[in-house]
């Protein structure tokens, strides 16, 4: 084989391996490759570089499991951004989402304080009617659980120390507190 041929062909080997050469040039390179094992091997190696790169990395079944797990939070994020998600759009021109993800987030956060304020306000009114501040009612409920009041034997030890009227007032306020909490829970739920 002719070394000057090798030098002439060398710059063409890479585009040849990629199939980028025009037919005339490719035919010339092929003619040389049939005679020159050195250049032929170079082409094989050049092709091998790309094919082995394309084959790396190989995913294991553990990788696939991880991939599936990783896709769930993405889907959840999608649902958060598109709360109306649930099915394909009706026929017709598709529309852009009404809200940016930030707007959606704000919208999702906003109802929570509103509900809580409502519950607080209702609880406060009921307690105020009974002559208790909301905070006080809540604290009373913690001291004397409403469920226990019907059973004297489970009453706290301090019971005998309380005057009878104070005790019944406590019982009433505890019942109110329970109602208020239930309503609050309903409103929040």
């Amino acid at each position: 084989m002719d070394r000057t041929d090798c030098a002439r062909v060398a710059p063409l080997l890479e585009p040849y391996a990629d199939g980028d050469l025009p037919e005339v040039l490719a035919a010339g390179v092929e003619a040389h490759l049939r005679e020159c094992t050195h250049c032929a091997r170079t082409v094989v190696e050049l092709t091998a570089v790309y094919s082995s790169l394309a084959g790396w990395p190989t995913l294991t079944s553990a990788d696939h499991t991880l991939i599936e797990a990783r896709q769930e939070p993405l889907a959840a994020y999608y649902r958060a951004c598109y709360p109306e998600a649930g099915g394909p759009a009706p026929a017709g021109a598709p529309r852009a989402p009404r809200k940016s993800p930030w707007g959606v987030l704000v919208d999702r956060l906003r109802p929570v304080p509103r509900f809580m304020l409502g519950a607080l306000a209702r609880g406060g009114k009921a307690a105020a009617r009974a002559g208790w501040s909301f905070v006080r009612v809540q604290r009373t409920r913690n001291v004397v659980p409403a469920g226990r009041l019907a059973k004297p034997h489970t009453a706290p030890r301090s019971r005998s120390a309380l005057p009878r009227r104070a005790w019944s007032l406590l019982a009433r306020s505890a019942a109110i507190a329970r109602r208020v909490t239930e309503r609050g829970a309903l409103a929040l739920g």
Partner: protein
Amino acid sequence: MSVSEPVLPDRDLVLLCRDGAENAYRALLDRHYVYVLKLCWRMTGVRDEAMDLTQEVFTRLITSLPRLQPQPSLRPWLRRVALNLCLSALSARRRIGQAEVCVNGQDGDGEFGARDRVDQVAQAVMARERLSRVAAAMQSLSPVQRAVVILKAVDGLSHGHIARILDLPQGTVKSHLSRARTRLRHATSGGE
């Protein structure tokens, strides 16, 4: 689910996504998640980092839906976003001075230090796969060389196309590619 059938082109899936069709989004994940993951993996050489970058790409897909120009294939957009994220992650890695595996690919000297680090990467994976040599050799390339060679080898893009994606002159793409390939060839054929 008719939405997730593979007959719909990406363009339609993107339009459905905008209308709140979760299945369409999941269909896009089915189609492109592994592609993006492998791209990030090849770029960073680290699976877990690639996983995180992939999450970021698909999160950005959701936030970009309103602005996205529906194309027949979503892949060019995903590829561009993923590459940009990888390149900035790699340059951040370099800035912070973490175990840096991609060095001196640009000018080709400093071979010694590079080989040290390549060996570290290689040791971890050598026993497992025949392809580990490619993985290790990839880490001896500069991030841009890596991007160029991936786009050529895996995606089969033309020099002009690669130049546009990476915002480089075509000549630079060609020289990156040639240098990267030589290095990879020597690594994978056991040197010569």
